[in-house]
């Protein structure tokens, strides 16, 4: 084995890579910038509470205690970013995409809703203006609106001034009707509520406190949401995923460039000089494989260095697993580039087709958005894309904090795919003229 020649070829490929500053910038700086953007959009480091809030508008045409209380509850919710507007401004905001939805409380909403709580009739209508391009936002708003409305309407119904008057009117109405067992029970319930209110008013008066608006129906449980990441104290850092995705994408694109460079070399006098040297086919292929792997590892290291230093991406799991997935992916990239070079004919066509294939692989591999948001069939299909295993492997070693065991399968798949690409490359590689 002519190791001096192999080292010379590797060193030469590295020099060619670094001589093209634009390629270095595209290969390192651009993925960092795009990953920073995606990471920020999808929640950043998890420490910014404003990130991911759903923007909604509230139109309070009622201005009752109930509508004001519901507006206040919605404004205090961490999931929402509430703006109070008039109906025209709210509609314009939703139309322009500034608000995901707008909830309109019509006039007499509080009174009608409180009355309907007892009678079940003449329910007021809350109009929801929704942006049809938003899928999850309006559903979240409907749920929160139901929760806060029940809480505030029941509070008003049982303890508020308007609610007490409505309760008295309802008892009077019951007295006028034909007496049944049900109406007697209902009267007893309402009279009990009245006595409870009177007792609370007395107690509050003695203490000098405001007796208004005491209790309402609330959800009879609380939820404690814990982010299941590497450590309980570590919030989800969406940069970890975006950097995995962009590293995979841009390293693959650089691998194609390496393949195209090989294609171009064949068309230059340099190919004759290489062929006239005592260099074997296997030595040449090995040198190309190692050179591209080293260049990919350089890119990989710089991208993750930026991720760690600037965006607080940490390897919460196995360092060995992280390194293993990284090296296996870089090896796959080099083999993929070689395969592209041996299958392609002209450089522009090869570059175009390979770029298209790479972007497809990257897209279905979950590099742009996590694979779990895909439809179920696409999630299954994406398991055939090596990019999915690379991204999952890197996610596992970083924010998921998984041990080395979980990196074994991704590493095996990546190395296996590299072996297939290399086999095709060796089979198709034309060395003899």
């Amino acid at each position, binding site marked *: 084995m*002519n190791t*001096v*020649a192999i*080292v*010379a*070829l590797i*060193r*030469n490929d590295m*020099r*060619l890579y670094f*001589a*093209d500053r634009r390629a270095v910038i595209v290969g390192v700086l651009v993925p960092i910038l795009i990953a920073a953007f995606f990471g920020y959009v999808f929640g950043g480091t998890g420490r910014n509470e404003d990130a991911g809030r759903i923007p909604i508008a509230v139109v309070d045409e009622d201005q009752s205690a109930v509508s004001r209380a519901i507006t206040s509850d919605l404004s205090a919710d961490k999931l929402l970013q509430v703006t109070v507007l008039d109906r025209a401004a709210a509609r314009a905001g939703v139309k322009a995409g500034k608000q995901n939805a707008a909830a309109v409380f019509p006039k007499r909403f509080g009174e009608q809703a409180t009355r309907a709580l007892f009678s079940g009739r003449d329910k007021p209508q809350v109009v929801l203006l929704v942006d049809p391009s938003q899928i999850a936002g309006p559903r979240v708003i409907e749920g929160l609106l139901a929760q806060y409305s029940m809480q505030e309407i029941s509070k008003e119904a049982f303890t508020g001034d308007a609610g007490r008057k409505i309760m008295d009117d309802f008892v009077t109405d019951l007295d006028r009707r034909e007496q049944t067992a049900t109406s007697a029970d209902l009267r007893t319930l309402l009279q009990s509520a009245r006595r409870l209110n009177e007792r609370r008013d007395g107690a509050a008066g003695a203490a000098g406190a405001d007796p208004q608006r005491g209790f309402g129906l609330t959800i009879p449980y609380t939820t404690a949401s814990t982010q299941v990441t590497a450590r309980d104290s570590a919030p989800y850092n969406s940069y970890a995923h975006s950097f995995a995705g962009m590293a995979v994408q841009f390293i693959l694109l650089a691998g194609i460039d390496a393949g195209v460079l090989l294609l171009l070399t064949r068309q*230059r*006098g*340099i190919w*004759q*000089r*290489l*062929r*006239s*040297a*005592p*260099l074997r086919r296997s030595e040449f292929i090995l040198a190309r494989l190692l050179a591209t792997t080293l260049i990919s590892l350089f890119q990989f290291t710089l991208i993750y260095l930026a991720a760690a230093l600037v965006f607080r991406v940490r390897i919460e799991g196995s360092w060995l697993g992280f390194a293993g997935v990284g090296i296996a992916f870089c090896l796959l990239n080099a083999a993929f580039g070689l395969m592209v070079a041996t299958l392609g004919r002209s450089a522009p066509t090869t570059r175009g087709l390979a770029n298209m294939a790479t972007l497809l692989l990257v897209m279905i591999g979950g590099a742009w958005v996590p694979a779990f948001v895909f439809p179920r069939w696409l999630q299954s299909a994406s398991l055939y894309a090596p990019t999915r295993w690379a991204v999952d492997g890197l996610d596992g070693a970083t924010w998921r904090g998984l041990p080395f065991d979980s990196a074994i399968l991704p590493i095996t798949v990546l190395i296996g795919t590299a072996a297939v690409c290399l086999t095709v490359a060796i089979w198709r590689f034309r060395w*003899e*003229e």
Partner: protein
Amino acid sequence: MLQVEQLSKRYGDRLAVDAISFAIGEGETVGLLGPNGAGKTTVIAMISGIAQPDGGQVSLGDVLVTKDADALKRRVGLVPQDLALYDELSAWANLQLFGGLYGLGGDSLRRRADDALALVGLADRRNERVKNFSGGMKRRLNIAGALLHDPDLILLDEPTVGVDPQSRNAIFDNLEALKSRGKTLLYTTHYMEEAERLCDRVLILDGGRILANDSVVKLMQQYGNLEAAFMQLTGHALRDGAEA
């Protein structure tokens, strides 16, 4: 030194080289002349080990190309017709690669690269990128790249194509310096005056066959000058679209 016996090469239906035989002695400079498509580049490719002959044999001393191509390649330096240089790299980096391909490294590579650069007059430009070189400088560096492993036989495939008279003259000086060092040169060209100036002997090739194999002096005596010999032997028909 170099023995070519019954060498043949076919590309599809076309016979590019048709059972040619010739020999070149040590220290001799031989011109390989022929119109476009005569088979000159194919002959060079087979002698340098790039192309496999379909028939015949090439040997250098006691080394047969078909038996030990690597050993033959170590004794042959090729200057391809197309520039075999990386424009993006410095002259030094290019030579470091070409020397490395022959197993050279460290001080020996440095020394030989310095010698080669000095021979072609580029010692003071070693750290400049090739893309900043003139056409003539690139051609000279192209020659330097073939000298690093100190080959016995140097194959030059139209080394002066596309350069100005000054650069051509500088290249002649380089080749004469190599000749004076006892190197054996096989030189293809379209320029008869180059062959007249440099070569001891000339092979005129056409249609894959050798039409003449004689000393420059004898051919000039017989035909008046090389141009006349060439035209009389190869004819006046145009060779448009001819390859190799």
